[in-house]
Structures are given as C-alpha cells and as structure tokens.
C-alpha cells in the first residue's frame, strides 16, 4: 500500500524475532526489581491516607529505634528554594506542609529487609489535620471549591477565574458564529471521561546509591534515564553529571514511566544511610494511588453541519483535572480533537484544573482519547440524525496535505484519506449484524514527536555492528532500529545489536515518548551508519589507492565504482573491520540533534458490539484498527502497537476508572477492581497497516505507538447507539451504566 510501492528492501518490512524476545520468555531479562547489590537496603514509603490534610507533626523516633532501620527521610531532608516544575516534582516526591492526595508520600524509611522497612514505615507517626478536599473536575472548577494551592496559576489565567484553574487556553481560527449560522444543524453535547491508569504490569522499581560527595548511581525501570537523572538531581540539589542512571528492561510504560516518583527517595535514603544502596519496589496499590494516571475530563462540544455532512464550524470547551499539580493534557486534547477535519472555523477553550488526586503522567497520546470521545461521538450522532454514512462524512471533511490543521499548523504528507478508504473497504464493514448488535467507527490522531536524540554506532572487529541508543525499548524499537541499520549496512539483521545505554554513554536523550524511538533514534542510527559506511569506503579506497569518491557501498561491501569498477574485488565489512586496527583505528558513527521531519499519524477503528439489553454487558464482536504507519519497519510490532492501543482504549471505554470514595480515597487500588480487560473480554484485534511514507524519515517512519488508543472510546459508544439506540456520554460504559441508560429510555 506504500505510495512509493516500487521501493524494494532487503530487511525493512520483514518480521524477525525481537532481540529481547528470548530474554523475556526465558526470564533472563532484568527488570527494575531484579537488581541487587551487596549491602543493599530496602525502602518503604509512608503515604497519606487523606485526600487533603495539613501535616502537623511527623515523629520518626519509634521507627529509627527499630534495629535494622538505617535511615528515614522527610521533606526536611530535601533542599529548599525550588520553583516551577522542579518544585512540583519535589512536592510530589515528598509532601511539604500538606498532603495533597490519597497516597501522597510523606516520609520514607530504609532498613535491612523489606519486611522491616514496612514495619518501620508503620511506626512513623504522622499527625494530620484533615482539610476539605475536591475530587471531581466540575466541582474543582467551582469558585468556592477547596483551594489546592494558592498562586499556582500561570500567566495564561485571566483575572477572576476560579482558584483551582492553573492554565487557561483559547485558540482557533475563522468566524465561528458565521460558521454556525451557515450550518443546517448545530448540536451541542457534554461528555465526561474518568481517569485511567497506564496499567503497566511492572510496578515502579529502582536501586539508588548516593554518597556524601554527591556522586550517585541508579538502576531503574524507566522510559527516560536522562529525565530520571535531571529530575532526581533537581529534587535533591545534586550536580546532574554526578548521577549515572541505567535503565532496566521495562515491563510496560505507556508514558507513565517518563517521570520520577520514588526514585529520589532511594537516593536520599542511601545518602543518609552512609551510601548503602537502597531498593524501592512499589506495590500495585502504590502504583495506582500515587503514580500518574491520566486526567479526567468534562467536555462540551458544539458542531455545525450541513445536510451533506460538511462541517461549518466547531467549538470545544474542555476542563481537565490532572491531580494536585498543573499538567493535565488539556492542550493536547484540544489540538487533537478536531485534527482529522478541515474546518473553516474552530474555537478551542481549555482549563487545567487542580484537584486532590495524584499528579497525572503521560498516557499514550495524552489527551487525545478524551477529546476524540467527545468530538467523534457528537459527529456520529449528527450523521445519524442527517442519515449520512459516518465514513463518507469523515472523507468529506478529511484533512489532506497542505490543509491547515484545526490547531494551526499546515499538514505535510498525511494519510487520513488512505486510512478512511481502507476502513471503508474492510470486510468487517460488510459483516452482517444481528439483533442488539451495532457498528461504530471513529477516527484518531497523534502528532508524533522527535526531540533530543543522541545515537552512536560502532563496527566490531568481525564486521558486526553495535548501536547505542538512549531510548528504552517499550515496543520493539530495538528490532526496528536493528533492521534499519542492517538494511543500510547491507548485513544480516542478526549482525546488529542495539543496546539501550546508561546516561554516561551518550548525550542527552529525551525518553521514549511521543512515538519517537523508531523515528528519532532510528533516523539518527541510519545517519550514524552512513558515517561508518563513508569511513569504510575511505579505508577501502586507501588500500586500493583510489579516491574515496570512487568507492561505493553495495550489499555490505566496498566496491570500486565508475572508471574503477571491477578493478578490485569487493572488500566486505568483515574484511575492513578485521584490519581497522592497522588502517586508522575504530570505525564508528555518531549522530545527535533534534531530528526533523516528524510525520503525524491518523487512524480509524471499526468496532462491532453486541449489547445484552438485560444485563447491560457490552461484548466486542469484531474490531479492526486501520492506521497510517508511514512505513512498517517491523510489521509485527506495528500490529502489536495497534492492538495494544486498541485494547487499552477498549478498557478505558468499558470498565477502567478511578473510583474515589466520599473521603477522597481511591476505592479500587488493585487490578481486581481497577478493571483492565482480560483476554476473554477481547476478540482478535484485526489490523490494517496503511503506508503513506513520511518524507522526513529515510525509511518513511511516522511512529505508531499512540494513535491507536484514541478511537476506541467513541467507536464503542457509537456502536452501542447503533446496537440499542442509547447514547452514552460518560465513561466507562460498564454494565451498570448501560443498564441504567436502557432503563431510562423506558
């Protein structure tokens, strides 16, 4: 399906085993909790049981008196004077004068065993004065809501806004009122989504060691070792370069492992314990209570449409709470909400609101699923009212290359139309539907991202290659990068080993986020490989006594070209590498920068559901993900990303939610009650990889990790209406909600 379908590759597009696969199935892979060092202590964290409380007194004496307890830290052990995001990180690491949410860390202790550490944590006495709290975003934005933090609002917030609004945004283009006036119908609805957790299987885990001299090391499961380094250094007042952070194999991240939680505590405890290493492994309850879920959202959308399906104007007002700190992804939600549509007039308004909940972290296409739930639901409802096919409506309004995006920029090469055409032609669109069965379709969007990237590659003595990347592999990026480097070097896939390295080995890399690893590290790795190829051509040319420009690289070997063609037999990479010690030393390549040419990714999902009108249960019958990959370097892992995104979206749509009790305590901090879908809840997720190559990447990569979580929320809501005629506007669409909606319909 590639636009340049004539291009042929030797390895790109094949499906070899991932290099980490055997490690993972045999147990050889080392995850965060697998590290151990001599003399290691174990840490435990004391957490607030209150949603909002003044910390009156912390008495650590009983804990310290326990034999085997080596250190206790409270906020008093951390430096003062931090500002902005650094202050937020420090405040989230350990509460200052107030605990801001249920699960907020208040103190930490290190002892010679995990059991002892837990006992000691219990002996730390904290006196709280419970304060009024607020959980729901619509309550938190009220003028009389309990104030989470005075003075947290940034300059974007106009005078007179309610106290918990910390960021405000308003943007758009065109004459919105004229657009609505031009429409045949204008509809406005309100929608709500609940906070959902990334739900990675591996809990946060680290081993930290910090000496009195400020030199430290950390082994940690993370998506971004440099972020861990910078944030820990900021929170603890250390020199960044004195910390060395090594990422472990990672058991899922989905954005949630791009920031710090207990990592600075292990370092602070280690320093107080005379430099003994301290290991902290979170329990599942800690992960759910105190690490980043995504934001919850309350959204109003208004759309004007002509009878032929043309959208004349659109307006979105989103309110999101991302916990007790600024950072709800309301901006991203607004950018993505109308991105698939060419709009003559659009207005976006957004509020980032504080509430007594954990600090939200990135979660797969942050913000995009919420906005899509609102916009794609309303569009479906309007198509239904006007009797228009929802795919045709999407094609009518689809953005194409050169169109102005709803959020401002002009799109480069994009594949939305190709995606929608592929969805239209998919066999599932023609599958027969029985009673109480329905079909839903929705689009989704993610920008994709590049960011700070540094990659080194080196040729080994035997002609194999090693690539050092700074982006932890959360979805098969090592396999993809190895394929691209092997393709360019002209050597077997198995001859390339990609290592995710520690902070001492490369310049600063942003985490694996924004679907960037295969794009950015991959692009840099290809440049590095090209540098090595140029050097190998020079070495061959020197040996042959001809100009380097007269040598070309073909199938893993240097060969004379042009007038010299055929004068010498090709010199293989192994031959060149075997004597590099005599010909000028190591052969390597290195590239760093901010790789340009990011390619956005559109997707469309088609889902068939059956609703049991007597129990309210929704069963997913068929599901297909159609998405533009640019080019699938390793199609199996692209499919895996599509399927994984869809499954997380299905969970968010049907069952997952943060449930807070009336005291502001998380009522479901376990996978039993925080209900991610299980295997028997899901059909096989079909995938269609559309390939509209990204001209900004040597092999056309766009990035595929995130768009897939966006369409399931509205697609399932649309399918439910198609099946039983009720429109659900508040997630999750669990049996209780569906049954209540059916009952309400009478």
């Amino acid at each position: 399906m590639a636009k340049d379908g004539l291009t042929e590759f030797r390895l790109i597009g094949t499906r070899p085993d991932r290099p980490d696969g055997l490690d993972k199935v045999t147990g050889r892979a080392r995850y965060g909790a697998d590290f151990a060092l001599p003399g290691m202590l174990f840490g435990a964290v004391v957490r607030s049981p209150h949603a909002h409380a003044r910390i009156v007194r912390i008495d650590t004496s009983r804990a310290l008196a326990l034999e085997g307890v080596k250190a206790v830290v409270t906020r008093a052990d951390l430096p003062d004077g931090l500002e902005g995001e650094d202050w937020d990180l420090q405040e989230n690491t350990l509460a200052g004068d107030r605990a801001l949410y249920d699960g907020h860390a208040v103190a930490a202790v290190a002892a010679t065993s995990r059991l002892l550490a837990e006992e000691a944590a219990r002996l730390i006495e904290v006196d709280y004065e419970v304060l009024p709290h607020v959980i729901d975003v619509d309550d938190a934005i009220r003028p009389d809501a309990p104030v989470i933090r005075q003075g947290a609002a940034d300059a974007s917030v106009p005078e007179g806004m309610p106290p918990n609004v910390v960021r405000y945004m308003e943007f758009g283009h065109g004459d919105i009122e004229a657009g609505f006036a031009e429409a045949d119908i204008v509809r406005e609805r309100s929608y709500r989504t609940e906070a959902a957790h990334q739900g990675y299987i591996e809990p946060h885990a680290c081993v930290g060691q910090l000496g009195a001299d400020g030199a430290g090391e950390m082994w940690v499961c993370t998506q971004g070792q440099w972020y861990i380094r910078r944030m820990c250094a900021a929170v603890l007042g250390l020199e960044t370069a004195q910390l060395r952070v090594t990422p472990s194999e990672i058991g899922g991240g989905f954005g949630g492992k791009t920031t710090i939680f207990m990592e600075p505590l292990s370092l602070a405890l280690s320093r107080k314990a005379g430099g003994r290493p301290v290991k902290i492994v979170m329990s599942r309850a800690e992960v759910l209570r105190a690490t980043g879920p995504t934001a919850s959202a309350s959204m109003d959308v208004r759309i004007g449409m002509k009878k032929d399906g043309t959208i004349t104007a659109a307006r979105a007002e989103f309110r999101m709470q991302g916990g007790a700190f600024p950072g709800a992804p309301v901006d991203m939600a607004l950018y993505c909400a109308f991105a698939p549509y060419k709009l003559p007039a659009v207005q976006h308004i957004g509020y980032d609101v504080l509430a007594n909940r954990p600090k939200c972290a990135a979660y797969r296409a942050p913000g995009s699923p919420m906005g899509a739930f609102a916009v794609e639901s309303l569009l479906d409802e309007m198509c239904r009212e006007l009797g228009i096919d929802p795919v045709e409506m999407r094609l009518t309004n689809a953005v194409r290359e050169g169109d102005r995006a709803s959020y401002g920029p002009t799109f480069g090469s994009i594949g939305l139309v190709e995606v929608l055409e592929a969805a239209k032609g998919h066999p599932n669109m023609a599958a027969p539907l029985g009673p109480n069965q329905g079909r839903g379709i929705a689009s989704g969007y993610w920008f994709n991202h590049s960011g700070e990237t540094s990659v080194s590659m080196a040729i080994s003595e035997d002609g194999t290659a090693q690539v050092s990347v700074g982006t932890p592999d959360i979805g098969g990026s090592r396999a993809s990068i190895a394929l691209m480097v092997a393709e360019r070097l002209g050597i077997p896939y198995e001859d390339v080993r990609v290592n995710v390295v520690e902070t001492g080995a490369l310049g600063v890399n942003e985490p694996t986020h924004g679907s960037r690893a295969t794009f950015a590290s991959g692009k840099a790795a290809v440049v590095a490989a090209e540098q090595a190829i140029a050097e190998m051509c020079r070495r061959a040319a020197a040996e042959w006594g001809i100009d380097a420009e007269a040598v070309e690289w073909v199938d893993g070997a240097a060969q004379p070209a042009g007038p010299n063609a055929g004068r010498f037999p090709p010199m293989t990479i192994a031959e060149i590498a075997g004597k590099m010690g005599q010909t000028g030393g190591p052969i390597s390549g290195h590239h760093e920068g901010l790789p340009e040419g990011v390619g956005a990714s559109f997707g469309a999902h088609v889902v068939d559901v059956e609703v049991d009108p007597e129990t309210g249960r929704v069963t997913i019958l068929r599901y297909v993900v159609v998405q533009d990959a640019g080019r699938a370097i390793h199609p199996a892992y692209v499919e895996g990303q599509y399927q994984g995104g869809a499954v997380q979206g299905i969970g968010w749509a049907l069952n997952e939610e943060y449930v807070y009790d009336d005291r502001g305590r998380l009522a479901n901090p376990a996978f039993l009650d925080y209900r991610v879908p299980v295997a028997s809840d899901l059909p096989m997720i079909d995938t269609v990889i559309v390939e509209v190559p990204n001209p900004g990447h040597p092999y056309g990569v766009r990035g595929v990790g995130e768009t897939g979580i966006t369409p399931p929320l509205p697609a399932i809501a649309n399918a439910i209406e198609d099946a039983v005629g009720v429109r659900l506007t508040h997630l999750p669409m669990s049996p209780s909600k569906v049954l209540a909606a059916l009952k309400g319909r009478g």
Partner: protein
Amino acid sequence: MTDVMHNFELYQPASLADAQELLGDHDDAWIIAGGKDSLDWFKHRVKQPSVLVDIAAIPELHGIREEADGGLYIGAMTTLTEVAESDLVNARFPALAMAASKVASPQIRNAGTLGGNVAQDTRCTYYRDGFPCYRAGGNTCYANTPTAMNREHTLFEASRCVAVTPSDTGVALAALGATFHIQGRRRDREVSADEFFIGPDVDIERMTSLEHRDILLGIRVPGTWAGAHQYFEKVADRNAWDFALVNIAMAARMEGGAIAEVSMVCGAVQCTPRRLTDVESLIVGETPGEELETLVKRVASSGAKPLNYNHFKIPLMENLAARAVRSLV
C-alpha cells in the same frame, strides 16, 4: 496497603485431631484453605493473625463422593477447578459446576477451594480497606452515606452493614439445598445454607456461622435436584477475574409443560444468598413464556431498597430471574 505480609506461625496439620488441637491452643488461629481470600487480608495488613492453620494436608477434606440418595459430598478442600470439571458434579448439579467455573480466573480456581469460596469474606471496599466499620467492630457504615460509593452493595436486608455475599458457588449450593458439614469443638453438625450464611442482623462481624474452632469439613448436596433442570448465570464487569454484580442459580422440575417445583437464589444483592420465594410461589404450576417472564420481573426485586449507586441491580436481578425462567422453555 502493602504487598508484604506480617510474620506468623504456620502449622500444617495432617489430621483433623491435630488441627483441632492447634485451634484449641491458639485463640487467634486463622484457618487457611486455598488462601485466595486470606492472603489478601494479610498482604493488606488489615488482619494479622499470629497463627495460621493450613488444612490442605488433611485427607478427609478432599474429594467428591457419591451419596446413597443420589447426592454428592464434596470435601471442603476440593478445588474449584475439580468441582467445575467433575463428571459427577456436571451430571447431577450443573448449576454448581457452572458456578465454580465462573469464579475468578483459571489460576485462582486451581488453588481456591469450594470451602473457601463459601466461607470468604465480603468485598466491601471500605471494610477491606481497614475502615473501622460495624463489620470491623466499629460503630458506623462508611458505604451507606449520601455520597459513599456503593455500586456493589445491598438491595435487601441491610442491617447497619450493606455488604453483600461475594460467593458464586454459595448461590448455587443454596438453590440446590446443600448442607454444610462442620466439625466444632465438641461435636459435628450439619446446617442448611439458611443457617450457614448469616446476615448482619445475626452477627455483623461474620458472613457465616463458622466460629472459632469450627472447621468446615465438606458440603453435602442432596439428591433432591440431581439431574433436574438447572440454571446459573453471573453478570460481572469482566468475563473473568471479577465478582458478580448479580448472580442467579435455579433448579426446577417440569410436569406437562408447567413448572412443578423450583428453587431460585440470587447473589450479590444482600449479605446472604437470597432465595426468591416470591418468584418461586408465583411460577409453580405456571407455564414458562413471555407472559410469565413479565410477571416474574414484577416480583423478583420486590422490597428492594437500593442505595445511591446500585439502582441498576434492580433491573439486572429482574432480568436474570426472567432469563432463568426462560431457560425452562
């Protein structure tokens, strides 16, 4: 909330006599069967008994035996997988086999026992979170306030506490008229489901009539309903690893197209399995069909007192009762 259990002494007696002696020696001894409920309590540190008596090694607590009346005697330590896959259970009491097969997940069913499934504690999140509620010996209910989360709580027979029975097999066993064989300190006794499962009006701190030094030996399912038409259905948020929002079990005999005898029990709507006596008396002698289903729906939930967030359980319960009757057509 933690994943690390407290320290305790673990005893693994190989005979009932040894088990009884251990229980006699230790006042706070906690009997552990499959451990699927117990270990959660310990990991969350809400219950911290100093002595555990693991009864897995006692031979007479295992296995499924045929009884003279056509019924079955099932040892309390028989796993849920064994119950679900037993040819005897499937032939005679498919409602029980189905109920056992719907508990939690395959891994949990491999370790979890029938005795443990009926004796497990309630899932009220406030109670399990360690709140000092009535059930925990305190003097308030946190789940029954104007703003509390109570989606999974009672419709019936609340008495201060609004927690519900979480057991799937308990509902099937109640419908099948099972009796619960208990060895006490001095003598054995056998009690009906009505006596085994107790509500907060009887004892607010226990879900069953088991007392200290009582060991549930086994469950006797009488021949009464062996081979009769049976029905079991569980509705939960997920297909696996979830507790019921509402479940239902029914056994019935037909004569000439009409319902001759019926026993119908609903779970997760009150603290004990709820016998739907109004439905039973309504449908005996009647012919299943749409008309009867409509009537069943009218009476199935009569007397229900929903809390703030569990109104949906009323239509759910009504529809499940109607579905059970529909299965007789």
